[in-house]
């Protein structure tokens, strides 16, 4: 019984990271019409920075957190300015940006692999310490709790941003009717940069809370990106609650599969799940908007 609960909670925790990635995909796509395949590896950037600052340089958690987020945000903004702007200028010329971001993902993945290769695997300390919490007969890793908590806070923050702030409203407007937004003076370049910056902040936080869980396995970038995509497909495009639920479902499914069936084939299970979802309900559970109409 306690295994089931632990698995469930682990699933929600990992699923939270997938949900964050799915959220980043949505934010970036709605702001720029670009699907950033390098998103998973940007999350890993947060993880790598956390690892180095905590384990190698022994800096305090707060400093690590700030640096991780700063690094990923800075990178995302640079990516938007240098790469994505270029693609948007070239227009919808076939598969340009899609392949470009894939190339970027490979570059990042390789860099992380090189950086971590020379390091001995060392557990990454969690800000909450390593003593498990106890709820009745169940012991829960504090890392999981942190993951879930941070995700919930972020999702709520993003929702509030979009509904309550001026910039958020203008970004929703741009996503709804780009031309009209331009006619009202909303600059598409600004919207695009803010979208990437937001994704950068979220990715940095995601990497930071992921670090104690995933340890120093950095080959996960593309894999996490792909699982995040399944979460997006399940939950539906452009829906924040959808990203959350989709991510959690994928996370729980993955953990359950890993624990009870076979951890080596979870990617295969994920692909089958994706194909089923696309066949049965391509627009996802919570969104009525298919990616085609976006």
């Amino acid at each position: 019984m306690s295994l089931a609960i632990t698995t469930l909670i682990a699933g929600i925790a990992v699923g939270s990271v997938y949900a964050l990635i799915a959220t980043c995909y949505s934010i970036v796509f709605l702001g720029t019409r670009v699907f950033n395949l390098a998103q998973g590896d940007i999350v890993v950037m947060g993880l790598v920075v956390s690892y180095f600052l905590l384990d190698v340089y022994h800096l305090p958690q707060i400093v690590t957190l700030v640096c991780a987020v700063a690094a990923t945000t800075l990178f995302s903004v640079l990516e938007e300015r240098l790469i994505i702007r270029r693609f948007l200028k070239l227009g919808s010329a076939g598969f340009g940006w899609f392949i470009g971001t894939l190339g970027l993902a490979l570059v990042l993945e390789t860099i992380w692999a090189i950086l971590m290769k020379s390091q001995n695997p060392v557990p990454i300390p969690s800000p909450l310490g390593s003593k498990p919490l106890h709820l009745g007969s169940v012991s829960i890793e504090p890392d999981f709790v942190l993951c879930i908590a941070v995700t919930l806070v972020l999702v709520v923050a993003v929702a509030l941003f979009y509904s309550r702030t001026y910039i958020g409203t203008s970004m929703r407007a741009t996503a709804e009717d780009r031309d009209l937004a331009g006619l009202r003076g909303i600059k598409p370049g600004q919207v695009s940069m803010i979208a990437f910056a937001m994704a950068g902040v979220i990715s940095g936080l995601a990497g930071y809370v992921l670090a104690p869980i995933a340890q120093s396995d950095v080959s996960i970038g593309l894999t996490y990106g792909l699982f995040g995509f399944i979460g997006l497909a399940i939950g539906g495009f452009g829906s924040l609650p959808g990203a959350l639920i989709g991510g959690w479902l994928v996370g729980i499914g993955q953990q359950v599969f890993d624990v009870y069936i076979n951890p080596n084939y979870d990617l295969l299970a994920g692909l089958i799940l994706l194909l089923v979802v696309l066949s049965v309900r391509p627009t996802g559970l919570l969104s009525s908007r298919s990616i085609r109409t976006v």
Partner: protein
Amino acid sequence: MNAGTELLSVRAFTAGYGAMPVVLGISLDVSAGEVVAVLGRNGAGKTTSLSAIAGLRSGKSTGDVLLNGKNVSSLSSAEIVRQGLALVPEGHRVFASLTVRQNLELGAAPLGRRQRRSAVGPALDRVYQLFPVLKDFGKRPAGLLSGGQQQMVAIGQALMAGPRVLMLDEPTSGIAPGLCDEIYAAVLRLKSEQLAVLVVEQNVARALRNSDRYLVMERGRFVLAGGSHDADAFGRIESVILDVGNSSSPPGAVITEPSAAES
């Protein structure tokens, strides 16, 4: 004509749709406190003209657009708004998922945050004075309003940034007559506030009632111009519209309102 206060000047302007030429060379001036109506049959190029002037170009465009003397032909639509030109496109387009209040406040986007804080209040008041009914709809999603009410939101939204030149593309098409009158009443008030207004209007009588001058467009060029309150205005326009003539010959002599700037 107040030659010195031309807020909007367009010279030898062409625009197209991809490879398709639509606007073949138009020139016009609108001065402060003036309402100029653009009439013409469908397909003449009126919407393409206004969109292209406002910076929404989907094809090659040549010629000059001058706002208060400044050449804005190469600027994007967002930049042109900052220069003081606002276009209300046809079809009473609003941001349907946002509330009326959010739609209006969004119109002030070009002002920049600091200026916005002080300017939004008075700007909203001005819009509510023009369209009092919007005050009650503040929290309603704009998508739930009627077409006429949406049009008021659209115009109000455009006014929030304080433009000096306002372009309206068929503001009354598909809208109930009562609301049409309200919309034009607002236009006339804006005229008294010294805005320059360029309006595309399908209803000839309404256009003449509410404007100072008219231009008739045919297949990408202006073919007729005159004063809206001239006795023969209606008759001349009616002739051009009903005269189906020869489809292939180029439209008649290209006429623009002689302005003091031209010899």
